[in-house]
């Protein structure tokens, strides 16, 4: 209590001092709330305990993690604490500035954008809830904020509470008026060379990748691998043959995404195989594209296919032409091409969005054979409904390997199956433990389940 009185006394002295020193501000302050009404008392709250600061793990540097146990005044749901103010300094005794605010009932904070290798010291201030009205006006708050930019971390109400209490706001944080924790530090932030949280992912990824590589190697070594037939791929050759018989062209749509989408890359690799057959059959191919890089790549691909089919003279750059990057503008043009040229066969292989059905329905209306393939789950139903054959998700990526017939490419598909097998095994094991845990209510089994789950929670 004595301390409070002393504090109020100091405050009044300070105010008087301010009055005489700065005439301008004094005029504004003197006859308003500050003097006439009793000054708001800041309740002193218990400080946080077990306050620690350490370099935050698995980051790119520049971050420090602070942890603490809640103040005793914050243990209840409706406690007196409104927030924890985080202060930082580069020396242990002075120059602490506000760097951030954590909500009440939070017990950690990550300080970001720090300089690596510098020593930092931290304090936590337990900040009380403000019960009164906001009394200071903007004209009073704004210069304060300008003087102490770090106050922007606080609410207007908080600043106004502090200002009422003590005009020299930052000194409040240095005084022992608020519940201030011990100083933690020194602590440096460092960047890590390995993100240990990703270890599970690394192991799973490596297992899958290595099995793919092993099977590629085995296939290269001459080992015969069995692969089942895929309906849509069998149909490709027939579809090209049909176009040849009818003397009509083949339309190839590689989706509306750029080369930075792996589905487009998959579409282009399939194009390489198809174009070879087309060159052999001496059929026309028409390929409108919506991205310039796709245009360049597709030209290289088709040229190569014609060359390896022994018909370089039949190739022309006009086979691939750019239309527009705009999704629906592209579709409008493709629809126009379809009804005017009436291609016998349409391929849609790549990444598609809402335009999928517009194209597939128009293609259907001109009686073309349509073969589609995409890994966009939302568009698959439309292709399934409107096209003759659809390569569903994974089949799109496998198609070029299938069509190539090269053993090493086929080997990679076998490796993929190993990945599926691993997935199924873990799903079964996980489900069995999870079910046992749910039915028996056993804590031990639950722990095992959670452990398995945590491997797959990256």
């Amino acid at each position, binding site marked *: 209590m004595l301390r409070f009185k002393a504090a109020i006394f100091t405050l009044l002295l300070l105010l008087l001092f301010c009055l005489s020193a700065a005439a301008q501000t004094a005029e504004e302050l003197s006859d308003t709330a500050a003097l006439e009404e009793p000054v708001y008392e800041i309740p002193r709250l218990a400080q946080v305990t077990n306050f620690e600061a350490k370099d935050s793990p698995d980051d790119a540097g520049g971050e420090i993690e602070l942890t603490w146990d809640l103040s005793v005044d914050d243990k209840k749901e409706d406690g007196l604490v409104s927030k924890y103010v985080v202060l930082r300094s580069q020396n242990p005794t002075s120059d602490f500035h506000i760097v951030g605010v954590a*909500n009440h009932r939070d017990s950690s904070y990550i300080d970001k954008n720090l300089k690596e290798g510098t020593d930092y010291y931290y304090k936590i201030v337990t900040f009380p809830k403000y019960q009164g009205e*906001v009394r200071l006006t*903007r004209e009073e708050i704004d210069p304060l904020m300008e003087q102490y930019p770090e106050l922007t971390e606080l*609410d*207007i109400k908080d600043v106004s509470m502090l200002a009422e209490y003590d005009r020299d706001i930052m000194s409040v944080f240095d005084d022992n008026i608020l519940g201030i924790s011990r100083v933690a530090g020194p602590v440096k932030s460092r960047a890590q060379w390995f993100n240990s949280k990703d270890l599970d992912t690394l192991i799973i990824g490596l297992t899958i990748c290595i099995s793919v590589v092993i099977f590629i190697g085995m296939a290269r070594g001459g080992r015969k691998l069995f692969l089942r037939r895929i309906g849509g791929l069998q149909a490709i050759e027939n579809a090209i043959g049909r176009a040849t018989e009818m003397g009509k062209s083949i339309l190839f749509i590689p989706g509306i995404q750029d080369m930075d989408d792996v589905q487009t890359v998959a579409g282009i690799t399939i194009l390489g195989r198809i174009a070879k057959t087309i060159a052999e059959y001496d059929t026309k191919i028409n390929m409108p594209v919506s991205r310039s890089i796709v245009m360049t790549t597709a030209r290289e691909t088709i040229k190569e296919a014609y060359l390896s089919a022994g018909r370089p003279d039949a190739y022309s750059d006009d086979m691939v032409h750019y239309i527009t990057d705009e999704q629906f503008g592209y579709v409008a043009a493709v629809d126009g091409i379809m009804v005017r040229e009436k291609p016998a066969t349409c391929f849609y292989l790549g990444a598609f969005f809402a335009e999928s059905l517009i194209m597939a*329905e128009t293609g259907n*209306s001109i009686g073309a054979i349509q073969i589609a393939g995409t890994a966009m789950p939302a568009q698959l139903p439309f292709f399934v409904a409107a096209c003759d054959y659809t390569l569903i998700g994974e089949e799109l990526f496998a198609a070029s390997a299938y069509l190539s017939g090269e053993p090493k490419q086929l080997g990679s598909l076998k490796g993929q199956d190993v990945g599926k097998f691993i997935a199924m095994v873990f799903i079964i094991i996980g489900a069995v433990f999870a079910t046992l845990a749910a039915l028996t209510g056993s804590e031990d089994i639950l722990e095992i389940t959670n452990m398995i789950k945590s491997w797959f929670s990256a």
Partner: protein
Amino acid sequence: MANDEKNNRGLLDRLQFIDRRYIFIFIALAVIIPLLLGLRFEEKPSPIVLALYDKVDNMPPGSRLLMSFDYGPTTAPEIQPMVDVILRHACLRGLKVYLMAVWATGQSLTVQTVEDVLIPEFPDYEYGIDYINLGYKAGNQGLIRVIVDDMKRMYSTDANGTDIEQVPMMKQVESLKDMDLIVSFGGGFPGIKEWILFAGDPGAIPIGGACTAVSAPQLYPYYPNQMVGLLGGIKGAAEYESHVLDRYPDSFKTKPTPGMNMMVAQMVAHIVIMLFIVFGNVMYFMYRGKERKLAMEK
């Protein structure tokens, strides 16, 4: 040649492979006729819609309602009816209305809404006293995070360039916490979710939402703890309109109800599609039965 083929086909055959343009006509009619006739059905409001209605309805006159326009022209057909009906309801209740946009495309929509609804239908409403258009400010969720504590740091003027300090209805508004209800229109990013996370939760401000039907399921989990209520798509608009009409028949009799009208169009179109599916299957089975018979005879 092609004509001959067509004529030689049996009726069943022709019906089974019906020219799709007939379907297009039916769909077009299914949408146009209900809209032209202005048909509307009464809709029973679902609890999540009713909750938002009650919140607006129970606010005393003079309470502050912030409407944030977080959508663009492509989703406007779905969202605009909800904007209109909530704005009308608010004006009827005498609330002070603050318009703003977190989407750049929302700016022109605020102006348009004021011109189409507020000025002609509520001539008593005076700019600066009863409603204000704060316009668009960049910053997405960052903007929300700032104005939750301090409105004037981001808004020194309104959308017309008037100094905010001169606007009477902004005098008592320090931050979003002075709002009695915030309704965000639009389910994209930033949208209702950001309003909940960066304004509703930290500032304890009631948040309501109105979004497209597609994005509604992702927002249900926030109701009722973090969100007052939600209108999902045209159905949500229709339910709200129907309920307002039910409660304030005199004032709303003459007002347009685009949501209810569109809902009828949508339902009719749905039913037409379903009828076509049924019809197609019946034809298919009749055709197959006939073919089988022919095969047996042979």
